């Protein structure tokens, strides 16, 4: 692909915290937008379209909040589109921005959004409402017990232990400590994880992501525009999505097509993105990964799905320190979703962080010499998976 690539030219993200009482929802969106636009060195007149990143409305407590956010992204008189694929929303929004440019419709597109999960406080009550009101709403399903059940199955098949789960938290907190934008930056030990209360077996408090508030924004442009304006960029060389059935109970039982222990469709999505980017051996060719994993256990099946390990083998490799910053293939050097989860933009931050890494701009959590990175986002009831390859 020469001359028709799509590049990332600007990135903005908040310093994520539980609450931002100084900023309204549009203020928070604008904060990230202004940072990204300054980073790109562009004015709003340069933008031809905006993709608005917004997951379930009830999390911010504003129905169709893109109506309120439209001014904060400077979208007046421009193409405008809201994207929602649940937790995958942020990466889906980057993908939609990419497609605007790859289609030839636009040269410069902004994608942006924000979330104030910390203002909700009842996020599991909101997320319970993503389940079917006919058969499953009566059960207290939420994303925590949904992914606890994935953990239970992963333990059963591959022998992951609660201690293995704790190792993920310890690693990611150590990395978040180096990232000034991360929400949970306190160092913890395996003992600290075990001393924290059970939320939903086998998940303890420190195995779970926080409820974060903050914004994210990225500016994408065509290769032609980037070269004409002599801008700095990193390139999206592969991207894909893959989905699977709504029914959790179909991902178990007799001969399921996909097992709820794993992230089957995430694996398919990565295969598609790798094919587009020409990656045949991801463990050798990828230098850094930001994988959407809101609970410690889910980092394992995400690493498997990324093709870094045979299914279940990520556990032993984690024990060896292979996925640490400074290890063979750092996973979530930013601290990841486990340390920061402002749902509407979480998967966008995965792409943004990988872009910063291959750009060499990640600061204290920089992976030395990273030139090829991957990002992922998971949404719905573990059913919509977006993936991306970003290269210097």
């Amino acid at each position, binding site marked *: 692909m020469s001359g028709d690539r799509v590049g990332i030219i600007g990135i903005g993200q908040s310093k994520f915290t539980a609450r931002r*009482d*100084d900023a309204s929802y549009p203020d928070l969106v604008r904060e990230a937008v202004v940072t990204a636009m300054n980073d790109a060195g562009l004015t709003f007149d340069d933008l031809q379209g905006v993709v608005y990143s917004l997951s379930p409305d*009830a999390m911010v*407590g504003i129905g169709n909040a893109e109506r309120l956010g439209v001014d904060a992204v400077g979208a007046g008189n421009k193409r405008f589109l809201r994207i929602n694929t649940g937790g995958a929303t942020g990466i889906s929004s980057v993908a939609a921005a990419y497609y605007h440019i790859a289609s030839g419709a636009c040269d410069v597109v902004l994608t942006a959004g924000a979330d104030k999960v910390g203002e909700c*406080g*009842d996020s*599991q*009550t909101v997320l*319970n409402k993503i389940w079917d*009101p*006919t*058969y*499953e709403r*009566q*059960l*207290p*399903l*939420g994303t*925590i*017990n949904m992914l*606890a*059940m994935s953990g*239970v*199955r992963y333990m*059963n098949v591959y022998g992951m232990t609660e201690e293995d789960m704790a190792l993920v938290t310890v690693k990611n907190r150590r990395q978040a400590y180096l990232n000034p934008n991360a929400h949970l930056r306190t160092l913890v030990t395996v003992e600290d994880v075990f001393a924290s*209360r*059970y*939320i*939903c*077996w*086998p998940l303890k408090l420190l195995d779970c992501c926080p409820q974060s508030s903050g914004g994210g924004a990225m500016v994408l442009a065509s290769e032609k525009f980037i070269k004409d304006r002599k801008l700095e960029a990193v390139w999206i060389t592969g991207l894909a999505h893959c989905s699977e*059935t709504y*029914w*959790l*109970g*179909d991902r*178990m*039982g*007799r*001969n*399921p*097509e996909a097992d*709820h222990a794993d992230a089957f469709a995430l694996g398919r999505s990565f295969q598609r993105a790798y094919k587009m980017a020409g990656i045949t051996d991801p463990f050798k060719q990828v230098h850094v990964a930001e994988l959407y994993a809101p609970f410690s256990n889910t980092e394992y099946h995400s690493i498997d799905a990324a093709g870094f390990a045979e299914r279940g083998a990520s556990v032993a490799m984690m024990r060896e320190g292979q996925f640490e910053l400074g290890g063979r293939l750092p996973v979530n050097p930013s601290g990841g979703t486990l340390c920061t989860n402002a749902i509407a933009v979480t998967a966008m931050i995965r792409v943004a962080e990988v872009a910063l890494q291959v750009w060499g701009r990640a600061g204290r959590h920089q992976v030395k010499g990273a030139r090829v990175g991957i990002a992922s986002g998971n949404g719905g009831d573990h059913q919509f998976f977006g993936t991306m390859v970003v290269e210097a």
Partner: protein
Amino acid sequence: MELMRRKEAWNITYTHALGETASWFYTQIRDNAKIYGRRCASTGRVLVPPRSFSDQTLQPTTEWVEVGPGGRIEAFSITYEQFQNLPEPPYAFGYVLLDGADTALGGFFKGVDLKDPRKASEKLKIGTRVITKFAENRTGDVLDFWFEPA
């Protein structure tokens, strides 16, 4: 400066139509304390809970098949945290492959002491045989039944 807040609660009511398939399923639960799935004619898969079409073939399912009351645990969760408008913890629920079914059905687990998480998780481990129990007064709902270790 003083930063101010404004509190708001959403209270929205819906009356959902359950459709023909779920209505028949719940009628059998209410009137006969029996659980049925729907068979996909082309693959033979018995879908529980029953659906009017197969997601794999997109063809209508064609036949009601009684399943259970015995089955095996496929996944479980034991929640210890209180969430607003959700039940008081601890509670256990998960998915059971009922005998004769191909997919697993969600329901509560009862009859297990949940006080000690690790001990409780052993009692509910994957593969454990369970039996479906029905409430005496049934309304036609998922909460009319639950699973207990056999």
